[in-house]
């Protein structure tokens, strides 16, 4: 029996997202998304190259020739299976706020902006909410500004939406009918009580919550080797900080 390999939280998140993406045909990542980007590249490698990956900010991993609009057109046509969204605030109904807190437009804390969220959240079938910071500042009872709603009224064209929320502490699955998150796993070293204390919204919780599966040695070698080199093209600072890697 070999000892369990040590890993960083970012590596656990990359491996976890890659598992969620398994079997999909086309995965895209948006602005400021080095961890989802790394995860998509890992999932593509595990698929033997069958998965198509589009990384915003990359020229090598962007199968587009029609500018920024093409990703959105792809999504509207159903050609995109998964995307990632985050939020300065995320609430228990999976509403996300990328605009700011306080009274809009004079936000006390202004976030960068809604980007494509108000569109892609409606159209991409598997949206993974991803935010490393898991605190009551982020995981709020109700967002101050709805950049994109977690669910929509009946009659609204909405083939897409959230499948769950991955944070630095845990993975929640989202139930679109109940409009609620359910805690599905806690990351190694984290307790359910800790998750509760850090979460400003109520969520469902089974009696026994399993631990998020840790990445094995082979996965870690892939992440630290070829994936680090590939992601360095679009995210040089991240790749260097995490892995000391330069663009391949």
């Amino acid at each position, binding site marked *: 029996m070999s000892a369990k390999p040590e890993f960083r939280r970012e590596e656990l998140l990359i491996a976890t997202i890659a598992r969620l993406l398994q079997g999909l045909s086309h995965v895209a990542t948006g602005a400021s998304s080095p961890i989802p980007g790394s995860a998509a590249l890992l999932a593509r490698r595990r698929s033997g190259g069958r998965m198509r990956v589009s990384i915003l900010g990359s020229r090598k991993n962007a199968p587009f020739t029609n500018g920024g609009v093409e990703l959105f057109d792809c999504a509207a046509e159903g050609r995109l299976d998964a995307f990632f969204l985050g939020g300065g605030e995320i609430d228990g109904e999976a509403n996300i706020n*990328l605009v700011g807190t306080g009274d809009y437009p004079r936000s006390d804390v202004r976030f960068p902006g809604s*980007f494509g969220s108000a569109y*892609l959240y409606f159209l991409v079938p598997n949206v993974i909410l991803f935010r490393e910071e898991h605190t009551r500042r982020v995981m709020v009872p109700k967002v101050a*500004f709805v950049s994109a709603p977690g669910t929509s009224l009946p009659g609204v064209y909405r083939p897409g939406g959230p499948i769950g929320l991955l944070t630095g502490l845990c993975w929640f699955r989202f139930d679109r009918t109940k409009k609620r998150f359910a805690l599905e796993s806690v990351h190694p070293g984290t307790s359910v009580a800790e998750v509760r204390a850090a979460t400003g919204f109520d969520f469902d919780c089974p009696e026994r919550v399993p631990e998020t599966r840790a990445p094995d040695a082979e996965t870690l070698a892939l992440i630290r080797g070829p994936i680090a080199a590939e992601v360095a093209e679009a995210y040089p600072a991240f790749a260097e900080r995490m892995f000391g890697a330069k663009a391949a």
Partner: protein
Amino acid sequence: MSADILNVETLASRIPDGATLAIARDQGGAPMTTIRALIRRGARDLHLIGVPVVGIGGDMLIGAGCVRTYEGAGVTLGEYGAAPRFVEAVREGRIALKDSTCPAIHAALQAGEKGLPFMPLRGILGTDILRHRPEWKTIDNPFAASGGDPIVLLPALRPDIALIHAAKADRLGNVWIGRDRELMTMAHAAKTTLATVEEIVDGNLMEDELRAAATIPALYVGAVAEAKGGSLPIAMPGHYGDDDALLRDYVQAAKSRGGFEDFLVRFGARDRVAA
């Protein structure tokens, strides 16, 4: 007929105070040399449109007091973090905001290039973006079989000026943009396009079959100026990467008003620190 070949200062003077000015995301290069010239001139009251977002150039224009209204889906310095001057201007209520979402900017420009009054777009329903954009209307899809199916209509965008930085232009005013097609949509939708380029080349880019489809025809271009390194500190694909040191310098400096003004002097956008 051909576009005017100008120097950067003269090109910037074609952007009047109060103009509606469209600038693309940083991916294919940023018109930083012209932005520097606008700040030097003390441009005012611009309605800045991010296509669909802006980066450090937008943050600098906002910080320097050149912008009355920002319309776009975001302001971001990417891996370098939040846009400090934008954040402060919002907190202090110094700019008007028209928060949008990326595909809405693209779609409104597409309406503009077609001379249409509006474009419908999926999504957006139930957001606070929509609630704060009274000029966006929701109708029921007139083609829906069973009624219902609400959809948002976006009024067309026709910017006064599309301001771009591209790899090359010829002396006729044809501008080669490569794969960054939002620049083409911007040029079609805007009343005129002003372009700085890394180099002005001899010949006619439209006669090169491999280049022609990725070239903005001179028909849309008002003026061109050569500006080597014109995107710095932002990368120009095929020419140079990000100036990491200068971007880090900016992020630190622009945390305070004074630091930002000092940076503008170092960047050549101001002669001296304003008193």
